[in-house]
């Protein structure tokens, strides 16, 4: 036992200097939170995003590389509301890192900062993969980002007091630019009001709620259950009676089902970035909404 411990200590001293030691190591579960942490932290933080826009944040493997990243994280930012329930609990227990455990200041759930939509009245797996805490995809409403940013800013200031002033200043500047952008987007999205939309998965509910669009159906028969031929046939019938104006899907969804419905029901399908990095233009949070709105406006007109 003693020799093994000595061995472990010897090993640790050889690798301990490997990761870059930025002031604050941020592990973001999704690219939108990585982008927000970068906006607030600037060069004072080193941000890693566990997923990309090409991945479904609910279906992620707790890969060894992710455990290694969580091991050295000071702050973990996730959407929460059980979105990451299939992988984050494992990363937490396997990492041996007390700083980012549930209840520690280094554990930040973005969805807990805002009012969630679609909190289920009945909880039963026959309804699909529903989240008891409500819809977790809160970032598709920019007003939610405006609510989450100050809370995250304060959390970063708490964890890294030496740079607290920097976080607050950057946060203030970001929020000013963000509020101005929201005002602009709200004007731009006026034509989307009341527009019936078919979604792939219920990951645009907050965007739909914000812009006043109307959800006319979803390609998934139930949340988390992939589209089935019988459900698509039903949707086609439904579209004949009451056509939607647009079908939206995310970069991580296969376009097949959307294109199928699009050709049969003669409704345009559009891929929207969903998160930062989802399209070339969605380079940051501003680009995310600029491009999402631009793509929808082109299609709806």
């Amino acid at each position, binding site marked *: *036992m003693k020799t*093994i411990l000595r*061995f*472990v200590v010897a*090993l*640790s001293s050889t*690798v*301990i200097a*490997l*990761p870059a030691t930025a002031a604050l190591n941020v592990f973001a579960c999704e690219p939108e939170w990585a982008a927000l942490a970068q906006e607030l932290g600037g060069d004072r933080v080193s941000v890693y995003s566990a*997923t*990309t826009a*090409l*991945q*479904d944040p609910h*279906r*992620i*493997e*707790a*890969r*060894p*590389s992710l*455990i*290694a990243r969580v*091991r*050295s994280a000071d702050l973990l930012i996730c959407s929460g509301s*059980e979105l990451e*329930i*299939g*992988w*984050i*609990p*494992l990363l*937490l*227990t*396997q*990492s*041996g*890192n*007390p700083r980012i*455990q*549930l*209840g520690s200041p280094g554990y930040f759930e973005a969805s807990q900062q*805002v*009012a*969630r939509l679609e*909190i289920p009245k009945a909880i039963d*797996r026959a309804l*699909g*993969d529903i989240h*008891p*805490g*409500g819809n977790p995809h809160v970032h598709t409403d920019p007003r939610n980002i405006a609510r989450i940013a100050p809370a995250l800013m304060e959390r970063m200031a708490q964890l890294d007091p030496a740079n607290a002033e920097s976080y607050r200043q950057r946060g203030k500047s970001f929020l000013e630019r963000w509020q101005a952008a929201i005002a602009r987007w*709200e004007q731009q999205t006026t034509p989307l009001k009341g527009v019936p939309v078919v979604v792939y998965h219920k990951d645009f509910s907050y965007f739909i709620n914000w812009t006043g669009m109307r959800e006319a159906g979803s390609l998934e028969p139930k949340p*988390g*259950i*992939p589209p089935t031929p019988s459900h698509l046939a039903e949707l086609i019938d439904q579209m004949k009676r009451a056509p939607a104006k647009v079908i939206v899907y995310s970069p*991580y969804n*296969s376009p097949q089902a959307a294109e199928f419905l699009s050709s049969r029901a003669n409704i345009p399908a559009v891929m929207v970035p969903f998160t930062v990095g989802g399209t070339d233009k969605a380079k940051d949070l501003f680009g995310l909404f600029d491009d999402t709105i631009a793509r929808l406006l082109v299609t709806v007109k």
Partner: protein
Amino acid sequence: MHRKATMALAVAAALGLPHAATAQTQDELKALREQVRQLDRRVTEAEQAAIQASSRPASESAMNPAVSVILNGIYSNLSQDPNGFRINGFVPTLGDVGPGVRGLSLGESELALAANVDHNFRGTLIASISPEDSIGVEEGYIQTLSLSYGFTIKAGRFFSAVGYQNQIHAHAWDFTDAPLANKVFLGNQLNEDGIQLKWVAPASFYWDVGVEAGRGRQFPAAAGAAGPRNKNGVGSGNVFTHVGGDFGTGTAWQTGVSYLSTSPQDRTFEDPTGTTNSFTGQSRLWVLDGILKWAPNFNPTYTNFKLQGEYFRRRENGDLTFDATGAAQTGGFTSTQSGFYLQGVYQFVPMWRVGYRYDRLNSGNSSFSAPLNAADFPILAAYNPTKHTVMADWSPSEFSRVRLQFASDKSRSDVTDHQVFLQYIVSLGAHGAHKF
């Protein structure tokens, strides 16, 4: 809402006020606008509070641990009598290694409870309820949450970190049964009463090092009538290390090596002839494991591929006691044996997977010293078992799976067992999270 309100005010202002509005009305308008804005904010806040409140469970049961239940059932068609199952060339482990019963049967049901105990510990209990109506503790352990520097300690009963598949619960296996190597070297699956210390290195790739000290309650430390080791201190020790990481943007890998050392005392087994034999000595097992998972852009939803393999090598030396007639004879015994399996599982469209596994064991060299005679141990006669397995499964949701499996099992030196399994596995309750 905000925009609507200000718009209404603006319209009212435009209609109701003459062209030349006084400075006073302008001020009033401004004040009104501010009031509306504040009201709007308060309404939003109230809405938010209401939603938050509605989502908060109020009952005491909110503190209950996460509960999940695994149910599985199976139809088996076996060309050979499962009661005569043995793996020739290897010491019987007396574990649950056979192919089960013929016909329709209920598999082992699992009941799992897990929760954080407090800010320091997490507790997990996994009970298995066998179709023969007995309840067993498959795992029951606490795990630290608040140790620093990448250390975690686990204590209780848990699946030993020896090799790869041993740590994975049967319901998450890619095939209905365990590989032959796990059956002969670990008695199907080794769960030890003990303590595990694990350290994750602060590196840019994954690297862990760990050590386990156990009681030695199961094969290879113990089996049969003598039961677990009756001694203070440690009956089995295991050290392991894994490294892992990503290749590019779609391939994740992990490889590890572990070394399990035990000193069995009167570990008994019954030869098919009915003779009871017992072994006392040293048993050392090396396991090399590797796993590779590929999914385009790490998005496994549509297609993914998994390659998994393990190589086992065991050396045992000590004394074997042979008791055929009530007159026990003891002599020296040494064996060096090995085995491996390699399996690939491919999800070609959402919900559907196919897989193939190849198993091979090498009974290696066994030597007996006088007064023992190799002919007295027919089960240990040199033989290299092999097995081919193919399976297809369908998982309509994250919580259910139906599997069809065919195997051609040459565990027995004289016959080939053609096995067909049709199986369902479902999980109820808390959403599980599976290890890589």
